[in-house]
């Protein structure tokens, strides 16, 4: 039973098929809040719907892998001497397309947070960027904002930008790609997990 119209689905970027899957899974129609949550969580930014099948093709196993991709906020690899290197890359494309400075800055903020969440000290930032040709004033505006935002956030907290890559193509006009990577270091005994254990005492409730 379709109690929602296409306009509503377009607002939260869900397809009709996705909506039907939601109804099937819940066993009922979702309320407005639930619909909004599915729309957000199934977006490319949060759910990596289209990127995931490609990312799965990359190597991710090894003796030294402490946290594999997807398990924690970032990946961790044992590099010997009781140390682990922790790193993660994340995209902030649409936030940057809408508000380039803050969109890119919060991309850096988020990725630094992911490293901190593992108890590691952020050491360096890198970025991978794509823009449309700079003779277009809108692309110039996005470029200036993104570069400014990335450098500003890292500078404020003392984590340097040490490398990156950038390319320009008309396919990216108005649709920049902004990927921020952070790498950190931690002693393995201080590596923190976000998953909770099986004991009741590990849980607590908010009221």
């Amino acid at each position: 039973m379709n109690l929602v119209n296409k306009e509503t689905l377009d607002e939260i970027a869900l397809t009709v098929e996705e909506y039907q899957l939601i109804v099937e899974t819940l066993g009922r129609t979702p309320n407005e809040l639930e619909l909004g949550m599915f729309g957000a969580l199934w977006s490319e930014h949060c759910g990596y719907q289209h990127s995931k099948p490609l990312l799965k093709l990359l190597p991710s196993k090894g003796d030294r892998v402490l946290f594999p991709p997807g398990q924690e906020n970032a990946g961790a690899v044992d590099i010997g001497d009781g140390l682990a290197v922790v790193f993660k890359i994340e995209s902030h494309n649409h936030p940057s397309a809408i508000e380039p400075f803050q969109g890119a800055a919060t991309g850096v903020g988020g990725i630094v947070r992911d490293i901190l969440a593992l108890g590691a000290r952020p050491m360096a930032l890198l970025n991978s960027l794509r823009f449309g040709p700079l003779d277009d004033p809108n692309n110039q505006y996005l470029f200036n904002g993104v570069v400014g935002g990335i450098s500003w956030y890292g500078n404020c907290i003392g984590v340097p930008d040490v490398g990156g890559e950038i390319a320009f193509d008309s396919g990216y006009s108005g649709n920049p790609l902004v990927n921020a990577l952070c790498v950190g270091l931690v002693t393995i005994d201080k590596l923190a997990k976000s998953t909770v254990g099986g004991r009741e005492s590990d849980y607590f409730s908010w009221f």
Partner: protein
Amino acid sequence: MKFGIVVFPGTWSDVDCKFAVGDILQQPYEYLWHKNNEDLSRFDCVILPGGFSYGDYLRAGAIASLSPIMASIDTFARKGGLVLGICNGFQILCESGLLPGVLMRNDHLQFRCEWTNLKVENIATPFTAGCRNGQVLRVPISHGEGNYFADKKTLYELESENRIIFRYCSVDGLVTDESNPNGSVNNIAGIVNSKGNILGMMPHPERCCESLMGGIDGLEIFQSIIRSIAVV
């Protein structure tokens, strides 16, 4: 030679300063939390490191200048103690009135992280006693608000009293517009107070004390400080 390294919320070059004076130069040091209003006479030199104290909110260094420790530093400096303000530290010293003038936004409005050349203009200070007159030091900057400005009267005093210690210059020691990375008036990179015991500078000597970092000219400043106190 005991160094005090002040830490405000948002300071992060404290670790770089500790690395330079504590690890490389093997000097005793202590971190000083900004809330402490205490007697600093056990120190020979107090460093106000770089970073973003209070996130540069309001103005760079404005809120930090109101911290309790600034009163202790004022007393310490009146008694002849050495104070070295680096980057945000320089901004804090200007905001607190311990040094004249102000650091404004870089004239080109961008953050610049790059090597600069500094001409040593005055070697009659504890911070430059080990240098040669006119020596060129290669020291990195990393700031968005390093554009030094002072009114005509203050500038005249600074110039005539030889209180401009470092000027941005070319690799050959020529003070030119091209070598000025931020628009500072008269290419001013570092100054001292009238007594000559408080120095503020925008470039980071603590980040060039090891060849792995690309240069060791920062050692000239720290070693001058150490030698000056040893003599007293």
